[in-house]
């Protein structure tokens, strides 16, 4: 296992280097650089522009610049933004990465879980109205024009019902005399949510080991205790209002990305279940007289999970892309929005940083999916 991980990490590093090289030269090949964008400004004379170019290192050949960039990148120096000049790229990324990660990870997990459960049930009840309705819903969610879907969500929840704010990270009016910065509040939100989830997960794992009659109580406790604890912590900290402000801005983007990823997951699970249901061992399980629920959940669904998990790997790129569109529509200041803005003004360091980060996110999720595969399928062993 460890040998496999080491080999895999090495492969990932090579892939990342290639990936960086391709993107660097792609971005670099753009006609015009940041100094040209200032050419329209009469206050900046040509020699000053040349000086700016020399200062930013834009006068040197691309290969040399790329090698410098890679050298700096792996020693932790991601450069300085051209657009917002003195800001370090690493600071921009530090601020924006958690926001994108929360959006992406939450949506991926929730859509995988809900998609798997509904797909499982839908494959079991084949035919009739439910089948067509579910297929149509799934395909619509899967192929819907994402910006439009986001707009419709805004229209429904922010304009018509007026339950949630329409976009952005927070409401600046409420933060005028906030004691700490939004990033700190957000970080605290992530940590408390993680702690709560860990307790919840541990409780559920434990509940499978105890006697049957204690099970329901333990499960109930492992849901209520962490939720209550987190709520109590926020109530006690006096920052609950600020936390709620960020949370209410977060709900709509997460809901949108989840709904879009859900369609694909549900369809995939359904197809995979239908294939599994034709296997001989399903007939054997039925012939043994097992209940329908046991056949469905223990015999069919567990085997149907494997292709769905593979599908998850392929869909990761798609959900990151979907995340970028959603970030733009909701003005959610994450990595994707940073990339879109930087690419438009030839801000090479920020664009490279954001793009590399998206690449790393994809690579890591592929690795997680591959390792998960070994856990799901005992026939697969990485040696």
């Amino acid at each position: 296992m460890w040998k496999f991980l080491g080999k895999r990490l090495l492969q990932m590093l090579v892939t990342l280097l290639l990936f960086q090289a391709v993107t660097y030269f792609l971005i670099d090949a753009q006609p015009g650089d940041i100094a040209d964008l200032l050419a329209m400004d009469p206050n900046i004379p040509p020699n000053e522009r040349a000086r700016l170019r020399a200062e930013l290192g834009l006068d040197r050949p691309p290969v040399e610049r790329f090698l410098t960039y890679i050298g700096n990148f792996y020693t932790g120096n991601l450069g300085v933004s051209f657009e917002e000049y003195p800001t370090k790229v690493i600071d921009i990324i530090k601020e924006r990465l958690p926001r994108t990660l929360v959006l992406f990870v939450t949506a991926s997990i929730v859509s995988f879980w809900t998609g798997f459960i509904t797909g499982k049930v839908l494959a079991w009840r084949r035919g009739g109205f439910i089948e067509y309705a579910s297929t149509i819903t799934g395909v619509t969610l899967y192929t819907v024009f994402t910006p439009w879907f986001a707009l419709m969500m805004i229209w429904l929840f922010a304009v018509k019902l007026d339950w949630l704010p329409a976009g952005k990270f927070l409401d600046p009016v409420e933060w005028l005399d906030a004691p700490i910065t939004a990033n700190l509040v957000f970080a605290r939100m992530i940590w408390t949510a993680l702690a709560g989830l860990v307790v919840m997960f541990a409780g559920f794992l434990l509940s499978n080991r105890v006697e049957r009659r204690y099970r329901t109580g333990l499960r109930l406790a492992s849901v209520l205790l962490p939720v209550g604890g987190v709520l109590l912590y926020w109530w006690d900290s006096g920052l609950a209002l600020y936390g709620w402000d960020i949370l209410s801005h977060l709900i709509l983007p997460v809901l949108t990305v989840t709904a879009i990823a859900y369609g694909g997951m549900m369809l995939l699970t359904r197809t995979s279940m239908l294939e599994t249901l034709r296997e001989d061992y399903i007939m054997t399980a039925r012939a043994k007289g097992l209940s329908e629920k046991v056949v469905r959940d223990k015999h069919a669904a567990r085997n149907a999970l494997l292709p769905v998990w593979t599908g998850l790997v392929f869909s990761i790129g798609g959900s990151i892309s979907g995340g970028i569109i959603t970030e733009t529509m909701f003005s959610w200041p994450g990595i994707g929005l940073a990339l879109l803005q930087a690419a438009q003004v030839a801000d090479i360091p920020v664009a490279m940083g954001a793009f590399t980060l998206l690449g790393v996110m994809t690579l890591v999720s592929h690795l997680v999916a591959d390792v998960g595969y070994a856990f799901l399928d005992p026939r697969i062993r990485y040696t």
Partner: protein
Amino acid sequence: MMTTDAKVTRVEYVPLWRVRLNLLLKSVRTNWALFAENPVGLVGLGVIIFFGLFALAHPILMNTVWEPRIYHPTMGYDMEIMAHPSGPSARHLLGTDPLGRDVLSQLMYSTRYEFVLGLLSAIVTVLIATTIGAVSAYYGGIVDTLLMRLVDLVIMVPFIPILIVMSSLMEVGMLELALIIGVLSGFGGTSIVVKSQALTVKVKPFIEAARIAGGGDAHIILKHLVPNLTPIALLYMMFVVTGAIFSEAVLSFFGLTTIEMSWGLMINVTQTQGYLMNFRTWYLLIPASLAITLLCAAFYLVGRALDEVVNPRLRRR
């Protein structure tokens, strides 16, 4: 003796092309029967045909009832209406956009480009994916490893971000976009699917028979391997069309392409003119968005129905 021989040789001569045509027609008939069992696939096909007619109707309308000065999709302007955008009326069934152009005309005009884009990128994808799949399955070894690592790299690239980067790098028109999408998805997931199919075909007896009969590598790949990969490649064409139309719409919506008119651009105009969040001017947003969603979904549905034809394990019986 002579007479019987003559009888035998006087069997009616059927040219080879007619045999092949008959076989083709027969397989089309049986596969159509399988396809038609699935109403969802038929709905998809119906939507595609509808959009096809929709696209064809535009030049006819422009030459007959619609005056080009008013109804031209990019340069038309209706002087008789005071304030643009204006809502649906008898003159403009779907209203006019903020620049005074007819929305329905734009919608119809764009349709043909969506088809061209989708089909072109699908053809490029299929060409690349079939080549990679067949070659890497047939030769194996180092060729296979190199190609598959390349595929891994391309799969890893997040699709929309790379298109954003590419479009800031150069002028991306319809043709360039189709080529980029075709190349990216051809080197991506599609080639893996085609390769796995090629691996199962490669070990079939007829390949071995062809080799024993003295067929070279190129002959075996082109005449025996590739024809058996076409069904699965055709199936994935449908999914590529969905992806291509969607990507074009997103890019045009962000204003990153140089396409003169498309569904995505219609929404982009709505946004740049400040009507995006104005939900009373629904006719600027809904028709184009709905058209994108419908056409994407239609190709996807046809793809799924074809999947049931190609893959018997998904069928109901």
